[in-house]
């Protein structure tokens, strides 16, 4: 075991993992996090706490993680390189480990231009792949990037993101290989709407033997309305939303129900794809729906390891 986290144990035991996203509040309410923790704790193996997602200032990921941890819910701390240089990254990792955080997801972060402080200076001292390397160095060699020794163990389960839908498509499995080589233990993918394209990516991933080296959790987003489907199709870069999905949402009598059904169908299909070891549900501003999705997808009860 690298970290002994619940997520690591479940994946190591070969069981299908379930994670979900838990966005921290734009304020100081611990309850906002705790409520989501309460809602999701029996249906998920770990909860990702986002890190100033879409470059909008929110409660820090580390604080959100600690609040979950205190109530017995396992967090995945998301960490972006947009806001921290190598000094801040390493010190935050030391603090996170001291506070019991065991899962970290390494990200570059949405560009500051998209957020509520578009005049901010982006740090980008190191990139997301180099962040993975940094955590692996800290964990496996107990060293800082400076080469100096760290006192104590850094038991981390290192995660990374992958977007099978970005360009150039044929490079996407190569980029995953780089993340695996850098030290990623698990992957949470961009939300999947275009299952055939995801399946083609997984084929390239398997061809390189990467599915044997890293646990891939396929990302899904339950879509709440046709407006949201349209918005994601037209405005969110790096997402591939088929026109059929938008049409289906538009034609549906009950859009929410249709959104859940679509999400369940996608989960059903990705479960069948070789090398997919779990699902990551990103129900942005619709966390309430996650338990019933996990239920209906036949993923309950969650394993106890």
């Amino acid at each position, binding site marked *: 075991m690298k970290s002994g986290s619940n997520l690591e144990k479940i994946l190591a035991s070969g069981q299908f993992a379930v994670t979900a996203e838990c966005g921290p509040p734009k304020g100081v309410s611990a309850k906002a996090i705790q409520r989501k923790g309460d809602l999701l704790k029996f249906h998920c193996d770990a909860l990702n706490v986002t890190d100033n997602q879409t470059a909008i200032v929110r409660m820090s990921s580390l604080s959100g993680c600690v609040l979950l941890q205190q109530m017995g819910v396992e967090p995945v701390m998301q960490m972006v390189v*947009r806001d921290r240089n*190598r000094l801040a990254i390493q010190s935050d990792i030391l603090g996170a480990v001291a506070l019991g955080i065991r899962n970290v997801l390494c990200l*570059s*972060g949405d*560009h500051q*231009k*998209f957020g509520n402080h578009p005049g901010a200076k*982006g740090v*980008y*001292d*190191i*990139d*997301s*792949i*180099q962040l993975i*390397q*940094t955590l692996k160095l800290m964990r496996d060699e107990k060293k800082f*990037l400076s080469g100096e020794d760290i006192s104590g163990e850094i038991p981390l389960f290192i995660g990374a*993101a*992958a*977007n099978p*839908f*970005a*360009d*150039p498509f044929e*490079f996407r499995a*190569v*980029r995953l*290989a*780089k993340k695996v*080589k*850098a030290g990623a233990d698990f992957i949470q993918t*961009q939300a999947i709407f275009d299952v055939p394209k995801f399946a083609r990516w997984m084929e390239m991933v398997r061809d390189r033997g990467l599915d044997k080296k890293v646990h891939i959790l396929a990302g899904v987003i339950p879509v709440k309305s046709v407006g949201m489907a349209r918005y994601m199709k037209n405005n969110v*870069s*790096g997402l591939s939303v088929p026109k059929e999905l938008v049409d289906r949402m538009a034609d549906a009598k009950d859009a929410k129900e249709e959104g859940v059904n679509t999400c369940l169908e996608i989960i059903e299909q990705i479960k069948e794809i070789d090398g997919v070891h779990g699902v990551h549900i990103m129900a942005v501003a619709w966390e309430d729906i996650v338990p019933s999705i996990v239920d209906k997808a036949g993923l309950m009860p969650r394993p106890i390891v």
Partner: protein
Amino acid sequence: MITTEQKKFEEIEQMTKGYNRLLVLGCETCSAMSFAGGQRQVSELAVALRIARKTAAQEGEILEDAVARQCEPEFVDLLMDIVADCDAVLSLACGAGVQMLAERFPDKIILPGCNTMFLGVTEEFGVWSESCAGCGSCILDKTGGLCPIARCSKRLFNGPCGGSQNGKCEINPNVDCVWQLIYDRLKGLNQLEKLEEIFPIKDWSSSFHGGTRKIVREDLKL
């Protein structure tokens, strides 16, 4: 070249108000190539300022001049007499030129008429783009001759990120994804294997992050 863009006229007008004898000073190298601060732009701006002052019944005279390079002391020192004859200098050079003037003429008001933009190239007539970040340790041998530090919005060394779509950067559909360009170029050169290697963490101390930089060449000193 160093690209510059002339500031908005209102800002220049506001900044120069109250300096009766104002010298508008061009720079005939980069700023002229940027069509922002060469002899021609000096004349145009001087005319506009004269008209604005006349309309506002404001006193004063607008002088014009230009030198080959405001960043070189030997050219700047040629301006001794004309600068002595004015209340303030509006420099149309880059920030380096403005500062050279400030250093050479310690008792004179020196004002910037341009915004210094970036180290870049002329894409086509009227279009310039950033291409070099001046980081102090060039990596272009490893990236197919295209710089991700200057041209990737997230300065990724191991791109392209998940926001690369149809060859464009997620931050702006008019901005090329440099990592797509690097990919295409290396593919054409049969060197795609270069992208399989993880690019190591950069030492930024050769860039601005190591403090203000200076080059000293003992072999050239007189």
